[in-house]
Every structure is written in C-alpha cells, then in structure tokens.
C-alpha cells in the first residue's frame, strides 16, 4: 500500500515528510501509533480499460 506522509516522520533513517512511501499493513499500524499524519494514495489500476473511440463505434 502507498501512503503520503503529511507530518514529520523519519522512516528507517530517511525523512519522508510530503513523500509517498510503500508500507505493509504492520507498518501502517506502527505509523498510526506514532500519530504521524498520512493519506492513503489511490493507486492507478495496472490495466486500464480502453475507452471506445469513434472508430470502434
């Protein structure tokens, strides 16, 4: 899961404020326990449905 860190947080040695990081569910719980503000980043689906063009119709 990707999250956007909104408040000051040093994740495994690196300052990640205003940065997106990939975390596990366990790490999310850890971040919550530290009262770090974050937003879950909606990930784009890997395969996008092709929109119908005028030619298809």
């Amino acid at each position, binding site marked *: 899961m990707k999250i956007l860190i909104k*408040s000051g*947080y*040093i994740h495994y*040695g690196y300052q990640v*404020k205003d940065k997106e990081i990939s975390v596990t569910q366990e*790490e999310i719980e*850890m971040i919550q326990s*530290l*009262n*770090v503000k974050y937003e879950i980043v909606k990930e784009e689906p890997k395969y996008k449905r092709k929109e119908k063009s005028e030619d298809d119709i």
Partner: protein
Amino acid sequence: MAFTPAKDKGGFNPKGGAIIRIKEVNDDGTDFTTASSVYDIGYLQETTILDNTPTTEFKDEAGDTVQTIEGDRSVTVQGVLMQRDKATLDIAKECRGKFYFLYKYNGIVNGKHQEMFYGCGKIYPSFEVKLQGGTTPFKFTATKLNSAISIAATIATAVITAGAGALETRQTATITIAAGDYYTIVETTVA
C-alpha cells in the same frame, strides 16, 4: 500515555547491562546517506540514566504552595569509562559538532532485557583522566525529536550486536520513538 506502576519484586536489579553503543546521525535523527558504523564505547564502570525536570513551587503569602511549574527538561546518559586507550580518548575530539544515536542496555529486569534507544543527541567533547585511576567521564545529552522515528529491525539488530561479544538475541523488531519524545524503553522477555 498511560503508565501502570505496581509492586513487583522482579523490578529490582541494582546492576546494569554495561553496554553503550553509538552511531553518528544527522541533526534531525536521520541516517547519513552512507550509514555510519556502530561503535561500542567500551567497558563501563557505572552509568546514570537521567530524565530530569526541576519544578518551581509558587507559594501564596500564607506560605502555601498554590502551583508547581515544571522547568526545563534534561535527558542525559552519563557514565564512567574504564578504558583510556587512544580510540576511547579520541571520542572527545571526534564527537565535536556531530550528533549521535545512542543505545543503552540496562541488563535484565523482571525476566526481561531492558534496552533504551535515544534517537539523537550530543556527546560532551571532553575527557578527564586521573592517574592513578585511569577512568574518564562520559556524558550524552539527548535532543527532543521533531519527527517520529522508526528504526528498521536490521539497524536495531546491528546496534545491539555490534562490537565485541555479540549478545543473545534481544529486541529484533522495528524500534519507534514518537515525535516530541527523546527516547524509548523496550523490554523483551529473556529467551
């Protein structure tokens, strides 16, 4: 944070763990791009872990205390180093202008290893060796963390097992210290 003190005979232990390890970090507690090594500062004669906030009592004209105001908080680790080899004395010269993460092992209390992790702080750049005797004082002052810190299990393990005489496995999970705090105390049941 809730605290739950209670009578427990296992909580006694006058002896410490005799281990302090340090690792250079940036002033905000982040690691260097090239992570620095972990160093054991040597044999310790004694240590004092201190989290002290003096208070000032305000009394009214009748002499009764009406308010107690907390003063400035000071979080330090002090000790006496038993070694006086060059590498130990060089700490005083090398630590100038630098910040360190500090690990302190306090031994086994109540069947649990007690370990303290200080996110960032400064070592007093001094030594004072009296001969005969040969010991020198050590002092570390922790700084308040602006950002919460999580220390990867691999780093925590590297800190715990660094130096001579690798120890039995203790804390092996990720260590966390909350923003606005100075240190965290971790207890792990003895295997």
